[in-house]
């Protein structure tokens, strides 16, 4: 209470700091007052006021003792100003009445607020709780109106009973009077609440306000003390239009806004036309005419082209015809000149037979005839030479190089005729040396060639030289990865396309089908070798193929072919098996250069190799029937087309060996040096099919044509018993007889060698 009062008093000064200070001090010392001197000397307040207090001049002197004296102050709720005997005139009663004694002093209500709160522990509250209101909450079910008349002070006091409870205890001893007042206040409260509970009739009177109402309430309150206790439990009122309560909450309304965009309207245009039958018709006519015109325009283009071409070609034809005639004339002239120059050779070729043969029984000689050279190919080697199967005077030459450390950059395919030794009939320079060739028997102007770079080509000798090759293998997709060593035309395919086979150093035998415009490759067999796979640089195993060096087809069985390899093996293979060999023979110890079947016996074949040897084999035998050592690498071996027992071989030392097994099984019947062995080597040899001449090529680009002396081309004389037998049968018989001689004693290794050595 005291604190509250001080607070209120100090509030007026608006010195909040001081308030707190003072309050704390009060609480500490529990003394209501302090001397001024103390206050001045108080260190906590020395910043507040100057030490030397200013005194007004006319201030009364008060002795120090008086100032020091403590004056006790007692605050009570009793208004000391209150007049006990105050009376007021009551107009209603017409007399003076004594005013009721207010417990709280002389106060006049300025504002009345009818509170609805009652103390919970009051009698009334207990009654109400008993009546069931407590559960609902007093605010909801409580009396609508309560008449309370209080002075301001009373209200304040009512507001602060709870916060005051603690300080009140401290203040109690000093405030005896306040203590005494408490019960009274409670009574007052009861009185105040009373009317609302009791009856609402009094409200009208109370509303008028004033002290009279207060007094009336007082009186009535005193009068209705008994009634108060008899409060009936109130039933909760039903809500109606007068007493219902409406509650509402307003949520936050979000502000709205509008956002608009406007796109650019799509572009528009105007169009107008008139569709009438006449217009439609006209337009159709126009369009049709235009189309016709276009057609006509197109046509003349083609026609013009054709015409132009034709006109041009007419000129060309004329030119060509002229050129052709001139060429023919020149050819004739050239031949005439050549004939004159080489007249003696021609005479020799035609008529010269070595007369010494008659005296040399069983021995023959070779007569050198023409030498064919092509000036640009002077340093090239003749890698293949082959007589044309159709024209007996024509042979094809492949110019390449066998010196692989100094390989030539270009090669040449030439067709020579013995009628014109000076210059080839046909020659085409290629960008890679040509290693092998083969002339197609069916169309003798088609020549397939195998090149050093692994490509194969087909040349058509009928075409002009500008067109170069007619077919060429795709250098990227399916060419050989090594030198193509031999190439052979094969049988036609089922579809009728010509095909040829090539064998290469990469160990593959590839069949090339001559399709229109392209060559189609099929790998027939990959030559596997007995060498174990070699670990590559990155750990993978590389299988090693054996390098093929020559290929030879069986004359009668088109799917059987023989393959010679660089390690000396001769494999018999079939087109039907692409993994396995039919047979395998260790034929030589060096690369096999040629395998050649006998023209009369399909089971006999000859092979030659770099190991100086020529061997004659029979199919199915692992050992050769004959073996000849020629003292130098044998470049080529060929059976003679006219005799079943004659074959010729050329060696690197420039010699040509001619054997006739019928005459001598151990020694050649002719050995003749064709070229100087110091500068040249013989590479290839070929018998002319019809004429008794042989062509052999050397490493300096020269082809030597030699004539066989009569002893080398001895024909069989039919026995007297059977005169009608033709030459071929006789030849076969001759060979069979010879073979039976060799076969009959069981063939043993070394026999031939011994005999050869013995000789």
């Amino acid at each position, binding site marked *: 209470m005291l604190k509250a009062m001080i607070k209120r008093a100090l509030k007026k000064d608006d010195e909040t700091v001081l308030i707190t200070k003072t309050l704390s001090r009060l609480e500490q010392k529990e003394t209501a007052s302090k001397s001024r001197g103390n206050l001045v000397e108080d260190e906590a307040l020395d910043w507040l006021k100057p030490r030397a207090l200013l005194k007004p001049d006319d201030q009364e002197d008060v002795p120090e003792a008086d100032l020091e004296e403590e004056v006790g102050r007692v605050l009570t709720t009793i208004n000391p100003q209150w007049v006990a005997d105050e009376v007021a005139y009551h107009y209603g009663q017409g007399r003076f009445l004594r005013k009721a004694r207010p417990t709280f002093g002389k106060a006049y209500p300025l504002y009345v607020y009818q509170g609805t709160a009652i103390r919970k522990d009051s009698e009334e509250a207990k009654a109400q709780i008993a009546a069931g209101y407590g559960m609902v909450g007093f605010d909801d079910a409580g009396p609508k109106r309560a008449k309370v008349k209080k002075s301001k002070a009373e209200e304040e006091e009512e507001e602060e009973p709870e916060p005051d409870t603690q300080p009140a205890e401290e203040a109690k001893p000093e405030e005896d009077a306040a203590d005494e007042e408490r019960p009274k206040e409670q009574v007052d409260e009861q009185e105040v609440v009373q009317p609302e509970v009791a009856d609402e009739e009094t409200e009208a009177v109370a509303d008028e306000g004033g002290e009279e109402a207060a007094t009336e309430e007082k009186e009535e309150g005193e009068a209705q003390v008994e009634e108060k206790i008899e409060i009936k439990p109130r039933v909760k009122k039903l809500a109606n239009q007068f007493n219902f309560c409406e509650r509402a909450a307003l949520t936050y309304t979000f502000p709205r806004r509008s956002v608009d965009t406007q796109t650019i309207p799509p572009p528009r*245009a105007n*169009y107008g*036309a008139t*569709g009438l*039958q006449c217009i*439609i018709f006209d*337009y*159709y006519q126009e369009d*049709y005419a235009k189309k016709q015109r276009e057609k006509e325009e197109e046509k003349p283009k083609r026609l013009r082209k054709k015409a132009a071409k034709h006109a041009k070609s007419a000129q060309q034809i004329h030119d060509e015809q002229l050129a052709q005639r001139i060429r023919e004339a020149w050819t004739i002239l050239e031949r005439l000149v050549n004939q004159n120059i080489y007249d003696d050779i021609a005479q020799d070729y035609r008529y010269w037979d070595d007369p010494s043969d008659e005296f040399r029984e069983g021995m023959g000689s070779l007569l050198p005839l023409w030498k064919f050279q092509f000036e640009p190919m002077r340093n090239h080697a003749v890698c293949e030479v082959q007589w044309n199967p159709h024209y007996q005077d024509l042979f094809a030459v492949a110019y390449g190089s066998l010196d692989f450390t100094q390989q030539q950059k270009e090669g040449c395919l030439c067709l020579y005729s013995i009628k014109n030794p000076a210059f080839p009939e046909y020659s085409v320079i290629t960008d890679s040396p040509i290693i092998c060739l083969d002339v197609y028997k069916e169309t003798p102007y088609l020549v397939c060639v195998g090149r050093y770079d692994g490509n194969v080509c087909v040349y058509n000798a009928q075409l002009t030289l500008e067109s170069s090759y007619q077919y060429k293998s795709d250098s990227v997709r399916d060419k050989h990865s090594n030198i193509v060593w031999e190439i052979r035309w094969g049988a036609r395919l089922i579809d009728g396309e010509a095909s040829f086979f090539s064998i290469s150093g990469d160990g593959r035998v590839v069949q090339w089908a001559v399709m229109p415009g392209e060559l189609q490759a099929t790998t027939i067999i990959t030559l596997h070798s007995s060498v174990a796979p070699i670990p590559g640089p990155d750990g993978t195993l590389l299988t090693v193929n054996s390098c093929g060096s020559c290929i030879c087809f069986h004359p009668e069985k088109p799917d059987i072919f023989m393959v010679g390899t660089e390690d000396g093996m001769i494999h018999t293979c079939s087109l039907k098996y692409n993994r396995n060999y039919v047979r395998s023979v260790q034929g030589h110890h060096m690369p096999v250069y040629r395998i050649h079947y006998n023209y009369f016996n399909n089971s006999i074949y000859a092979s030659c190799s770099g190991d100086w040897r020529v061997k004659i084999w029979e199919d199915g035998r692992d050992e050769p029937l004959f073996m000849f050592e020629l003292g130098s690498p044998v470049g080529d071996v060929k059976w003679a087309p006219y005799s079943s027992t004659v074959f010729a071989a050329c060696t690197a030392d420039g010699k040509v060996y001619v054997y006739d097994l019928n005459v001598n099984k151990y020694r050649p019947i002719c050995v003749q040096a064709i070229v100087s062995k110091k500068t040249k080597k013989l590479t290839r040899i070929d018998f002319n099919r019809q004429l008794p001449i042989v062509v052999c090529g050397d490493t300096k680009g020269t082809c030597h044509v030699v004539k066989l002396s009569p002893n080398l081309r001895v024909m069989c004389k039919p026995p007297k018993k059977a005169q009608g037998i033709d030459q071929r049968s006789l030849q076969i018989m001759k060979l069979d007889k010879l073979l039976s001689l060799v076969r009959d004693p069981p063939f043993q290794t070394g026999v031939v060698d011994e005999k050869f050595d013995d000789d």
Partner: protein
Amino acid sequence: MAEEGAATGGAVAEKVVHTYPLIRHTDMSEEMRIEAVELSVTACEKFSQNNEMAARMVKESMDKKFGPAFHVVVGESYGFEITYECTTICYMYFGGNQAICIWKCS
């Protein structure tokens, strides 16, 4: 007589009836143009006696394929002056006597 016959014969030979679709004016894209021409041909062949139905068919098909709102006029003689969205007009003749105008304007 003979002359006349020959003349008429010549005239008959001269008279060629064109029925193929012939585009008179268009700024459509290739795809749309082909579609429009095909549709028009189909519709006009299907409803050879009923231009209204043909036009409706073309219009509805075009609406489905290229979005609304297409306008189609099929008729033998008419004049028009229209505003169209660019790249959507096709004015063509078909069957030798029909003019078909397709355009879009929404």
